[in-house]
C-alpha cells in the first residue's frame, strides 16, 4: 500500500468497522407471549428477571429494543439464537 486515498476502505478503516459494536434489536410481534420473551432473554443472555422484564416491556411498548450490544460475531450468534425461538431479531451497527 502506498497510502494514497483510493476512496475505498483502508485496512485501518476495516479494522475499526470490525471492532465497532453491533446491536441486537428485538422487534415486537403481536402473537409472541410476554412470558416467553422474558424467559428467552433470561436463558440466552443470563439477564436477571428485572432486566429481562424491562427489555421485554420496551419491545412491547416501543415496538423494538436493543437487547444486547457487542462484537459483531457474537451479536450474530445471539440473533440466530433468538430466531431459533421464532423471535423477530436483527443486528445493526451501534449508533
Amino acid at each position: 500500500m502506498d497510502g494514497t486515498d483510493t476512496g475505498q476502505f483502508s485496512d485501518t478503516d476495516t479494522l475499526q468497522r470490525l471492532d465497532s459494536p453491533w446491536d441486537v434489536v428485538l422487534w415486537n410481534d403481536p402473537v409472541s407471549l410476554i412470558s416467553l420473551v422474558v424467559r428467552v432473554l433470561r436463558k440466552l443472555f443470563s439477564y436477571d428477571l428485572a432486566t429481562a422484564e424491562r427489555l421485554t416491556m420496551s419491545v412491547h411498548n416501543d415496538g423494538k429494543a436493543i437487547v444486547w450490544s457487542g462484537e459483531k460475531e457474537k451479536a450474530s450468534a445471539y440473533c440466530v439464537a433468538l430466531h431459533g425461538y421464532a423471535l423477530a431479531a436483527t443486528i445493526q451497527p451501534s449508533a
Partner: protein
Amino acid sequence: MSEPFRRTPEGIALDLPETLRTWLADQAKEAAADAVRVDGPVHRRLLGPINPADDHDDPVSELQRQFEVEGSLGVLIATAHTDLLSDEEAEDWIRAFQLMLAATAARLSILSDDDVAGLDEEAATTVTTFQAGISLMIDALDG
C-alpha cells in the same frame, strides 16, 4: 382432563388427545415445508436476513438457521405420539410451538393486535392453541 404437560422424575409427561398430537405434527410439517419456500411469507419471517442491510445471510449462517428450524420442528414431529419428553426435547417443543405460531402469523399477515382481534374462529383457535402450549410447557419445565 389432567395437565397436558407434567414434570415427573423421568422427564415431562405428555397427556394429549391423539387428534391433537396428529394435528400438531401436521402443523409442524407444514411449517417446515413453508420455511424453505424462499419466496413465501413464512420463509421471510423465519429465515429472513439477520442484517436488514443485506439481501441474505452468509451461506453458513443461513444453513445454521435452517438446521435449527428444521431441528426443533423435527423433534416435535418425531415425539408427537410419545408419552415422555426429556427436558431438551421439551425445550424443542417450546421452540416448535413458537415457530408454528410465527408461521401461522406470517401466513395470515398478522402484524398488529387489531389483526389478532379480527381473526376468524378457526385461526384464533390455532393461535391460542400454540400460545397455550408454550405457556403450559414453560410451566412444566420451569415450574
